[in-house]
């Protein structure tokens, strides 16, 4: 079968994304953004904009679209624009122009004159460190600061002081924008009192609920459709500004409305990964055994304090065996665009700091970095009784070291002509979770089946997983299974996030499939049915009984039922009280740094991962490759720059760099497959996000190996490596 069912549609341009939908009479909206970072809007002169050609309406805080901020249990409150005159960041949506064409709306938007009463803006994370606040509790409810101390140890300071070898350093990571290929966009259409919103999101039912709440409409009257999502990465978890505005304007104007952010607007009118600063102290015995880990983290956060990047909770809390551990998380409220989840929130920037520090410790101990990691391998998170359900990190390092030729590494790197060559490695971990998900399975009388859940496939491959797991659970070929996703009228699939979709939806399929088969068998043996009174069983898509067999389609035909449907649900359950769950990996990379001009080129990469059972090998490999490449991007290219006045200095794809093909060598991905049925019956753990974890540290560690220069911030730039 096709390794990725939606692949042909996507590469031939036939996949219909949200903004690809067009309707008769459709108007176009353009969002107006603030050009100060903090203050109040005193006036907005919209006279010229209103009289510009084609303009239908100009909305502002003085003449707003009525919107209410919706709240979800998973993501908290979502801000909606124009409900007051406050400006909290540069590039904040403050107005909305609707016109007959996109160009007319954009031209009119440029005619809007805004008067501000500007207030001093706080925009520098460094400057704000001194006045940082404690972060709210982590997502699992743990407090911002916590420690695990061995018996008789008074404090982490004592534990560090008693350690024969100590390394201490402070690391910094830049903010990042998701920069999905599909900009945040929506088409909203009202028809007979029902609103249909076509918009890429990570959860169709969640978006429908958000829009209904924001517009104070009944949930049943909002229908959200997103069969294809052009990248999300956490940035389309919350419902986006264009979706709210298009929906409200379509209601106000009684016309379909399309709205898409420009690429430049995506950088401020959505939400970003916050920048972080992290101080780490590691105390070890001379043989490398960790005695103490201290990891203090600061995250930038917008003034509404809506999201904090949990770097120490996401890494040092769980990664190594240590007798003493102390972590803390603080936040620095700034006049910056909103922050939110981005792939491996916490783990990605956290692992840059922790895995750099581990490499620094290996250097201090004159120990091989892999050996140091293996010496401190944990059977359970520090201070917890629940052991890892299935951990094969050692095997990842062993297999990876052999595959990558790690034994040829020397502590000083090597040279090849004018290039300084170094190897680096790092651990990757990402928690294995399940979110609540419901899946409906329908058997049709033509011997096909349908597996449907509202959810979303933002490029992760969930659509294909539905047909693969559906086929397996129904004991039929996956080609016979039609997967259906991205429509809020389907059973609630929840959110495609947290690397949970395969485990969540897959487990729900494994609940729904036996149910629909039971219903089929009851139907087949019911009075008047072909197997009336017989002892029936099911195999290979057929009902068996009394020495005869029929396909399920034949049975349905015989009883005059075109189809039967059953649903199944799954969520994190009892397993969480028995074990700790995580996926694991070992990252390797080789870099070449030019002797004269100091540019860094990644010349080889390998990731070896333990993510339980792999459902779709090709899609899994693609996910991991994408993550590893993103890790290189974070290490060498990507980083939001905020100016003193709060303006994003590099808010477009010309100056916000991501790697191009020439930057990325062949990427080797390998899986050690150990199905984890303690986590779920499918045996699969998440692998969407783990690919990026550790990669930036592996690059930085390789740069150190090549040059002897330790760069403690990302992205690493040429000037960081230029000798005086």
């Amino acid at each position, binding site marked *: 079968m096709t390794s990725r069912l939606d692949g042909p549609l996507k590469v031939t341009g036939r996949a219909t994304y949200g903004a690809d939908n067009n309707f008769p009479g459709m108007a176009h909206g353009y969002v107006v953004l603030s*050009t100060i970072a903090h203050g109040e809007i005193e006036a907005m002169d919209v006279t010229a904009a209103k009289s510009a050609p084609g303009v239908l309406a100009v909305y502002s805080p003085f003449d707003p679209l009525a919107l209410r901020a919706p709240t979800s249990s998973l993501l908290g409150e979502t801000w909606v624009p124009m409900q007051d005159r406050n400006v909290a960041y540069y590039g904040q949506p403050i107005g909305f122009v609707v016109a007959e064409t996109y160009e007319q709306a*954009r*031209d009119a938007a440029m005619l809007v004159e805004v008067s501000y009463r500007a207030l001093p803006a706080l925009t520098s994370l460094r400057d704000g460190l001194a006045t940082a606040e404690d972060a709210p509790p982590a997502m699992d409810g743990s407090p911002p600061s916590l420690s695990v101390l061995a018996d008789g140890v008074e404090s982490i300071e004592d534990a560090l002081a008693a350690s024969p070898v100590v390394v201490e350093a402070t690391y910094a990571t830049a903010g990042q924008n998701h920069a999905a290929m599909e900009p945040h966009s929506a088409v909203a259409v009202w028809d007979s009192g029902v609103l249909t919103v076509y918009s890429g999101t990570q959860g169709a039912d969640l978006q429908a609920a958000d829009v209904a709440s924001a517009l104070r409409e009944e949930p049943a009257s909002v229908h959200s459709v997103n069969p294809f999502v052009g990248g999300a990465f956490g940035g389309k978890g919350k419902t986006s500004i264009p979706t709210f505005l298009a929906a409200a304007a379509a209601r106000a104007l009684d016309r379909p409305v399309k709205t898409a952010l420009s690429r430049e607007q995506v950088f401020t009118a959505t939400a970003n990964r916050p920048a972080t600063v992290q101080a780490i102290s590691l105390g070890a015995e001379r043989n490398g055994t960790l005695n103490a880990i201290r990891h203090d983290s600061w995250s930038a956060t917008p003034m509404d304090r809506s999201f904090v990047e949990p770097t120490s909770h996401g890494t040092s809390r769980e990664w190594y065996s240590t007798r003493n551990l102390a972590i803390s998380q603080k936040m620095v409220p700034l006049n910056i665009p909103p922050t939110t989840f981005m792939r491996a929130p916490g783990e990605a920037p956290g692992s840059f700091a922790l895995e750099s520090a581990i490499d620094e410790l290996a250097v201090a101990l004159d120990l091989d970095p892999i050996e140091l990691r293996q010496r401190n391998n944990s059977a359970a998170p520090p201070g917890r009784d629940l052991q890892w359900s299935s951990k094969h990190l050692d095997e990842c390092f062993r297999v990876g070291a052999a595959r990558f030729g790690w034994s040829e590494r020397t502590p000083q790197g090597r040279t090849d002509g004018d290039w300084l060559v170094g190897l680096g490695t790092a651990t990757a971990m990402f928690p294995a979770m399940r979110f609540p998900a419901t899946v409906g399975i329908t058997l049709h009388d033509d011997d096909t089946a349908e597996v449907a859940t509202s959810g979303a496939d933002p490029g992760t491959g969930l659509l294909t997983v539905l047909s693969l797991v559906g086929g397996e659970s129904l004991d039929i070929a996956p080609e016979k299974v039609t997967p259906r996703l991205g429509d809020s009228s389907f059973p609630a699939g929840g959110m495609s996030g947290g690397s949970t979709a395969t485990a969540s939806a897959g487990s729900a399929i494994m609940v729904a499939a036996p149910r629909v088969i039971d219903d089929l068998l009851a139907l087949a043996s019911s009075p008047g049915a072909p197997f009336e009174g017989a002892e029936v069983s099911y195999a290979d898509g057929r009902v068996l009984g009394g020495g005869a067999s029929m396909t399920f389609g034949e049975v349905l035909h015989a009883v005059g039922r075109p189809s039967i449907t059953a649903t199944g649900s799954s969520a994190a359950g009892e397993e969480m009280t028995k074990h700790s769950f995580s996926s694991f990996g070992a990252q390797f990379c080789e870099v070449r740094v030019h002797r*004269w001009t100091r540019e860094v080129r990644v010349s080889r990469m390998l990731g070896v991962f333990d993510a339980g059972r792999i459902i779709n090998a090709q899609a899994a490999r693609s996910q991991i490759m994408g993550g590893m490449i993103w890790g290189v991007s974070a290490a060498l290219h990507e980083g939001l720059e905020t100016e003193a006045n709060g303006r994003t*200095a590099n808010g*477009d794809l010309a100056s916000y*760099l991501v*790697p191009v*093909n020439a930057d990325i060598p062949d990427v080797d991905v390998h899986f050690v497959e150990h199905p984890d049925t303690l986590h779920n019956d499918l045996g699969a753990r998440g692998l969407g996000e783990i690919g990026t974890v550790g990669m930036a540290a592996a690059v930085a560690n390789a740069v150190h190996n090549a040059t002897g220069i330790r760069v403690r911030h990302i992205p690493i730039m040429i000037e960081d490596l*230029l000798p005086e």
Partner: protein
Amino acid sequence: MRQFELSAPETVDDALASPGAFLAGGTTLVDLMKLDVMTPHRVLDINALPLRGIDTQDGLRIGALERMSDVAAHPGIYPVISRALLQSASQQLRNMASIGGNLLQRTRCSYFRDVAMPCNKREPGSGCSAITGANRMHAVLGTSDACVATHASDLAVALIALDAQVRLVGSDGTRTVALADFYRLPGATPEVENDLRPGELVAEVVVPRLDWAAHSTYVKVRDRQSYEFALCSAAVALDVRDGRVVDARVAVGGVASVPWRLRTVEAALRGSPATQASFEAAAEAAAEGARPLSDNAFKVSLMKRTVVRALLELTEGSRA
């Protein structure tokens, strides 16, 4: 993008007769029109004009409408030119962008491209945001208190090194100007970037014959391996005989307000041995007069290193 009137003159005379913005490949003009940075009322598509042809008989003559990719692939082109072209933009852009347009491309300064920000080049007298802003990519040579933007063309750096000229046509006739004189330092009038008069058109690039320019190269240092502008680049050509430099051409890009010829470095190289030590000594003069900004002091050192690297690659062969 504002509304504009588009016409497509078929002769140079017709093109010169009607004022408007000339459109060749469109890779600068259309980009800046979408950003509202350039708002011409009339756009003249000049692609039908007979400003084509690549002649390598005696030096080079390149029609202004030749595409970057075609010039780069032409067999008679000096290596420094083809390498500068091939390290510019992306293949798709090189297929569209013209040689004349490349020389006239506007700066990549992000404040120039953002109409919400002051910029003396876009709006004279409004101020320079880059001097106190994010200026890592900006110039350290040839700058003024009014503007610190770099010139973005790689091709122009190679051409300056080769003493190239541009042939200009206007309603008053044709004139030929050395490229080194064509570009203007920003001074107090950064909006004036070159010697082009209103209505005048770049017709042709002329490169005088220089046989030893067969021994030339272009090194471009940037934040990623392709599709990115230079932090620093060096165009070099060397005439080496018996281990000594007889003559040299050196120019740098990405570091100056205009493509920057390094005549003092050339002078230091002339007569010296073709060794790393003498290259390093000569390159010391590269950053003479540099005025680094808050974020780009590293360009002073990078410039010298880029020149040394280019000279070494030319004398030792590529060691990539």
